[in-house]
Structures are given as structure tokens and as C-alpha cells.
């Protein structure tokens, strides 16, 4: 099992290496092109250019391989095969790749895995590492990183950090999957800070979106909305959503995870 520090070290090492290699290759190409204007007897510098091309092809092949590993890890995580995903992610983090985006993706996959294992501080550390780069991180990676960071900080009880991570997302155009994730984390966050009126804004749309989530998330979001409806005097909505939650999940389990929700079942 790869440790978080080890993963971050691999990530930084590969980024430095790939920057140096790219610069070296660029410089080499420039130098070889310039050599064409210098009389060199029988030697043709174009041959050197072909050698550089071959080096580039080998590195590109490794990058494609890394990209495949990262994609496979994502689908293993999605299907809940965490042990296999862990092995795959470790391989992809240890293998060298020229692409920053593939390396970031692998680190983010590790963050998703640690989140599933409820190792929140590890997730936060990994997300912060991915987000620390100002340039070169693809937008989808940075959006997922922010969502994961907000999620882990919320679990750790760091409400200020959660707010900051969420605030960074409002300037981005989100995909449906990202919007659903944001709704889940935001609902939980607003319930923690007791912003019941804000929670009830666009209630109908939030409920419709929650319907497309997997059962545990659909139940949790609707339970939080039910609590907000109850606290703001929307009794009809509170009862409707509470009954839905009862059909979607085990209430004992849900309230064990979020004790604030007990209020919905109190007489």
C-alpha cells in the first residue's frame, strides 16, 4: 500500500523529471536544427533528430500506458473494487509519465480511494497537492479535487476550509455528476452551519437532482432537506421527504452517521 507521502514524492519527482525532459527535448531539437547550418563533413544532423524522435515516441508510449492505468483505476473505483484499484493506482503513480494531467488524475484517484476508506486527512493532503499547482492542471481535475477536498474537510469538521473549497467551484461550469456531488457536500455543509433558509432555496430542483443519486446519497440529501423544511415551517415538505428517506435507507444507519437528523423522527 502506497503511503500519501510516498505518492506525493513520486508525483513531484515525475513533474520535475517531465519538465526537465520536455525542456531537454526542445533544446535538443533546436540545437540539431541549428547544426544544419554548420558544415559538419559527412555527418548529417538529421539522423540525431530521428534519434530524438524515437526517444519521444518511447516516452509517449509510456504516457499512453499511464493514461490507460489511470482510466482503469477510475472504473475500478466506480465499481467499488477498492483493493484492485489500490494496486492499479500504485502502479500508475510509480510509473513515469510525461503528462501532468495523468499524474494529477492518478493522485486524485488515490484521494478518492482514501475518501472511500474514510481516511479524510489523507484525502485532504492529496487534494491540496493536486490543487497547489497554479498552471497545467486540467479543469476537470481541479474541480474534482476541490469537491473531494470540501468533502474530506467537512468530515474532519473544518467548516471554514469546506467553505473555501466550495467557493472555488462557483466560478466553474459543472457537469451533472459534479453538480450532484456539489449538492451533496453543500447540503451537508449548510445543515452543519444551520443555514436552513439557504437549504430550502430551489427545494424542488434539489429534490429532483437528489432523485438521480445513488440510494445513500439520495437519502442523506433528502433527509437534510427534510430537516431544513421542518426548521423553516414547511411541514408538508418535511413529512414528504422524511417518508421518502424511510423508503430509501435504514434510518438507524443514517442517523448514526448524522445524529442531527434524529430530529426528523422525534415525536
Amino acid at each position, binding site marked *: 500500500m502506497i503511503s500519501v507521502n510516498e505518492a506525493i514524492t513520486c508525483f513531484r519527482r515525475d513533474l520535475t523529471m517531465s519538465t526537465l525532459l520536455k525542456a531537454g527535448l526542445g533544446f535538443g*531539437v533546436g540545437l540539431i*536544427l541549428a547544426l*544544419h547550418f554548420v558544415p559538419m563533413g*559527412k555527418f*548529417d544532423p*538529421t*539522423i540525431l*533528430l*530521428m534519434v530524438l524522435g524515437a526517444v519521444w515516441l518511447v516516452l509517449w508510449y509510456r504516457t499512453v500506458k499511464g493514461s490507460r492505468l489511470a482510466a482503469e483505476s477510475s*472504473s475500478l473505483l466506480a*465499481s467499488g473494487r477498492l483493493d484492485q484499484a489500490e494496486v492499479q493506482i500504485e502502479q500508475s503513480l510509480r510509473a513515469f509519465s510525461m503528462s501532468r494531467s495523468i499524474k494529477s488524475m492518478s493522485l486524485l484517484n488515490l484521494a478518492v480511494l482514501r475518501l472511500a476508506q474514510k481516511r479524510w486527512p489523507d484525502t485532504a493532503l492529496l487534494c491540496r497537492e493536486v490543487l497547489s499547482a497554479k498552471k497545467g492542471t486540467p479543469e476537470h481535475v481541479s474541480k474534482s479535487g476541490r469537491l473531494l477536498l470540501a468533502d474530506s474537510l467537512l468530515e474532519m469538521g473544518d467548516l471554514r476550509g469546506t467553505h473555501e473549497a466550495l467557493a472555488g467551484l462557483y466560478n466553474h461550469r459543472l*457537469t*451533472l455528476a459534479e453538480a450532484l456531488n456539489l449538492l451533496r457536500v453543500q447540503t451537508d455543509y449548510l445543515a452543519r452551519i444551520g443555514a436552513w433558509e439557504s437549504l*430550502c432555496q*430551489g*427545494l*424542488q430542483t434539489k429534490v429532483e437532482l437528489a*432523485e*438521480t*443519486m*445513488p*440510494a*445513500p446519497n*439520495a437519502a442523506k440529501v433528502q433527509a437534510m432537506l427534510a430537516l431544513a423544511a421542518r426548521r423553516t415551517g*414547511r411541514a*408538508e*415538505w418535511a413529512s*414528504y421527504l422524511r*417518508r*421518502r428517506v424511510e*423508503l*430509501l*435507507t*435504514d434510518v438507524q444507519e443514517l442517523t448514526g452517521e448524522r445524529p442531527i437528523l434524529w430530529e426528523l423522527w422525534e415525536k
Partner: protein
Amino acid sequence: MSETPTAFLDVPHLLEASQPRPRPIWAWYAMLAAALFILTSTWAAGQNKQLQNVVQPLGFLLMLGVIIGMSVFASHAVKQQRQEQQRLEAVEELVQLRRWDQAGAMLDALLAQPTRSGAARLQALIYLASVLARYHRFADAIAVQNYLLENARMDPAATHSLKVMRAMALLHEDQLFDVDKALSDLRRVAPDSAGLALVEIYRDVKTGHPAEAIDIVQSRLPAMRAQLGHRVADVHALAARAYDLLDRDAEAAAAYERATLLSPAEELIRRYPELAPLGEKYTPAAAPAKEAAA
């Protein structure tokens, strides 16, 4: 001669037209020719000093052309692939949001021409099968699903979900012998699947075995609830029909109320036409007025 316009979501046409185009072979020939030219001219220049003065700048220009050409070609290919991926993601979202008309129109356009990659085509065909089932074009949906199961390599979870969809479509088409075969196959691989249980419940309701349907609901409900999310409404609705067939009206009314609490009655009846009598007999759960949310 004018071309006959194809029908909306014409499956044989879309399966044929969406085959990815093979990579242009001329690009490989051109690169091979350039490499051959450089090697031959370098060798020739080695034999003749005067020729060297001509060959070196020429080789330089050719190499520069190859580098620029390859960069432009690669960037164009990546851009087109990204566009295709974005269209596919849009279809996925439309299917998830149940905007079937828009999803169908996008799939019709996407699959009417060769896709950039086989994986994108595969994904689009999976969405196409869902859209066709939604339009109750089950024979077409089965054709797409059979094509995918015979020709595509998918991970076990995707294969299982496709087989469940196919079994459901076969049941809608009343192909009971094939349904039994499909269910046996599913039971062998994933006996605890909620999708499998849902198809079994529907088969029992459809073929007049309500007691068996109720047995499955009672024994498998917690697992189905965890796996199906809001689609567990289908289970409650089919249970309501099973109770109704057994004249256990109170239980039928309660199950129908649970079902309509999670999903609108019209949507459930559209999915399973056998549920239509329930709408006339029992009261659906009342949803809060939309204005109240404002």
C-alpha cells in the same frame, strides 16, 4: 438520384454508419517516404561532397515539415476526439435527467457518422439501447444489446447491467423462453443483483404468479433498496400489482402509496403498462405543491 431520408433512430443504419473509420493510411506512407528520403539522401551525400550542400538543407526542411505536420495533425485529432467525448457526456447527462427526446436526437446525429473511437461508439450504443427502451421500441433495443454483447468487450459490471436491460426488454416483448434463458445466465453470474430481482418480480406479475413476486420482494427488499435508489419505486409498484391480483387491497394500496411517493404514477405506468388498473383503484401519494418550495 436523391437519398432516402433515414427514420429516427434507425438501428441497422446507425450500427453500420457509426463504425469508426480506419486511420488514414496515407499519413504512414508519407512518414515512411520522408524517412526513406532522408536516409537515402544522407547516404548519397556521403558519397558526393557537392550533393551534400543540397541534401542537408533539403533534409532539414523536410524534417521541419514532418514535425509541423505531425503537430497539426495530432492537435486536430485530439480536438475532434475531445468534441466527441463532450457530446457523449452531454448524452449521458440527458439520459440521466430523462430528457429522452434530446438524448435521442443527439444519439441519432452522433451515430449517423463514423465515430472517432470504438470506445465512444460502444458507450453511445449503450445509451441508444436505453433511449429505445424508453420509447418502447424493445425489438430495436434488443438488437442493439445483442450487437453489443456479441461484439464488444466490456467490464463485468457493464455486461451485467446490459444483460439485465436486455432481459427486461425481452419480457416487454413477451419472449418468455428467452427471458428464462437470460435470467438463468444472470443468476449464475450475480445471484444477488437487484436488477435481476426486479426482472424476476416483473416476470411473475406479468405471467400471473403474484405470490412468487411478493416472496421475492419480501426477501430481497433491503438489498434492492440499496442498489436501485429511487428505482426501488418499481419494486413497490409491482408489489402493489401483485397484492392487487391476490385481492389483498389494503397491502396493495400501501405498496402503491410507497411507489408513488418515490416516482410519479404516470412514469410507473409508462414503464409497466400492467400497472394501469392500479391508477384507477388506489390513491397515489400526495406530493407537496410546487409553489410551496419557492
